[in-house]
């Protein structure tokens, strides 16, 4: 291992929490990640030293806050290799990002009878906005099915693509199964059919490097809080020419060029899409968590996370009655499972009594779980600050369930 997990754990103060008399074992990273002290300090310092509204003051603090906010935009742009910081729109999170695209891009470019393709493994955040949009516009929603191992059925995708397809919106890495989708292939094929592509990167950016130019995706969205930063901040990346052609999403202050009752004109992107006072401290904290990540050897982090995933998959597979959902060869580090005779909520409660935090439920992917014929799973999701010892604790605690519910 080329990095020191003990040192890394020390940088995340919450990991020292005791649950009852037991040390916290935090395995709910797909829901939200914990924050390093550096990021917490940046949030603190912002309110202690910088706080002011941005883009409209001439005083010292207003300029300082504006510069920090715009610097954050530059750093986010570099992080995903956008060609310009003007391709980065700050929003509340992945959900708002997808709603922005559905409303703005959708209303302008997708008409009645046109088609939007999503997949069975989407989070509700990448289903419901399109259902709403299709209902209002008369566009048609098409869904790529999923195989037993939890991968997209690519042949079905090929069949769904047509000249009616205007947008393909799929998850980069599944929050429920962990599957990393073949997004490059999807993008190439969609582009060949004349469709644009939106990737939901909520579960991807915290695990592996993302290069939007290399991917050639048209839109990419993600949330700060799954990237070791604050809640309430997220990002829409869009190719500039595309953003430029899109109408505003919300109207308000800061997104206009000039307002009059004879007609209002809007700012160029990204300002056009950021109505009202944004989550300034959140954007700055997001840049801080990106700096934190970039300081690490990301190849080593990823290799370590894979080791954890392999170890967890192996350890959990040995438990009687435990079934893992999502066995694709390419996965982010999470394991979704059920236990025979015990509901996932009861599994999560037993684990909680041992200080182990996992998620139980449908993970906002009800159509996906319906496809597997189950109402819920328990999910252990890992970050680079987790350890093999924690996975041992998880396995020991799960073994107790057999006894308790026998």
């Amino acid at each position, binding site marked *: 291992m080329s990095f020191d997990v003990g040192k890394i754990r020390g940088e995340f103060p919450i990991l020292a929490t005791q649950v*009852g008399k037991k040390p916290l074992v935090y395995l709910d990273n797909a829901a939200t990640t914990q924050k390093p002290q550096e990021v917490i300090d940046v949030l603190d310092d912002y309110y202690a030293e910088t706080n002011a509204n941005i883009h409209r003051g001439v005083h010292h603090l207003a300029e300082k806050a504006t510069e920090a906010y715009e610097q954050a935009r530059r750093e986010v742009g570099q992080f995903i290799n956008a060609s310009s910081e003007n391709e980065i729109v700050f929003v509340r999170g992945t959900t708002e990002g997808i709603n922005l695209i559905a409303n703005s891009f959708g209303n302008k470019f997708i008409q009645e009878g046109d088609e939007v393709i999503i997949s069975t493994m989407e989070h509700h955040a990448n289903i419901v906005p399109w259902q709403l949009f299709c209902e209002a516009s008369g566009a048609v929603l098409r869904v790529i099915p999923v195989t037993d191992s939890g991968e997209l059925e690519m042949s079905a995708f090929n069949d769904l693509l047509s000249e009616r397809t205007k947008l393909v919106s799929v998850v980069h890495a599944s929050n429920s199964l962990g599957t990393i989708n073949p997004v490059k292939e999807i993008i190439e094929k969609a582009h060949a059919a004349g469709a644009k592509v939106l990737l939901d990167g909520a579960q991807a950016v915290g695990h592996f490097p993302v290069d939007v130019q290399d991917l050639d995706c048209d839109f990419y969205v993600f949330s700060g809080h799954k990237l070791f930063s604050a809640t309430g901040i997220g990002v829409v990346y869009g190719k500039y020419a595309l953003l430029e052609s899109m109408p505003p999403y919300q109207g308000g202050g800061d997104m206009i060029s000039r307002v009059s009752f004879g007609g209002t004109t809007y700012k160029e992107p990204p300002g056009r899409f950021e109505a009202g006072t944004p989550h300034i401290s959140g954007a700055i904290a997001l840049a801080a968590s990106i700096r934190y990540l970039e300081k690490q050897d990301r190849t080593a982090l990823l290799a370590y996370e894979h080791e954890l995933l392999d170890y967890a998959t192996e350890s959990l597979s040995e438990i009687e009655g435990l079934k893992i959902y999502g066995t694709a060869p390419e996965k982010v580090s999470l394991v979704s499972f059920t236990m025979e*005779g*015990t*509901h*996932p*909520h*009861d599994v999560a*409660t*037993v684990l909680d*009594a041992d200080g182990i935090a996992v998620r*139980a*439920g*449908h993970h906002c992917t*009800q159509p996906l*779980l319906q496809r597997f014929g189950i*109402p*819920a799973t328990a999910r252990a999701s890992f970050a680079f600050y987790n350890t093999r010892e924690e996975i041992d604790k998880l396995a020991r605690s799960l073994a*107790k369930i057999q006894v*308790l*519910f026998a």
Partner: protein
Amino acid sequence: MSDLTQLYQDIILGHNKRPRNYGSLDEFTGKVEKNNPLCGDEVTVYWKIKNDQISEITFTAQGCAISRASASIMTDLLVGKTIEEANIVFEKLRLYLSEEPPEGSSMECLGDLVAFSGVRDYPSRVKCAVLPWIAFLES
């Protein structure tokens, strides 16, 4: 595991494993499906009311031990009762799940539901315990 055995008392585990009155009714005067949108758990309650009394009540469920046991005990307790009487039991249960009853108070009408005392320490699981009751009585 002392905390856990408080929550998962034997009565609850027993009802979870071998629920009473489990299944649908061929003939019923009422049927309602209820789910908990937070977790996706589902319960369906079937009942027959004759002369204002609940003459039969059954359920099917996809849910945790707490909600299944609660549904099982509910169907056991409510046969022969009126809706009004059923509401009184539910009110008692709600109160029982929120605070310890004063010493000496009679919990007789709760029957096996007294085993839910441990749920008080798990606020997120109170919803599981009341789900079948809400399905039946607030439909």
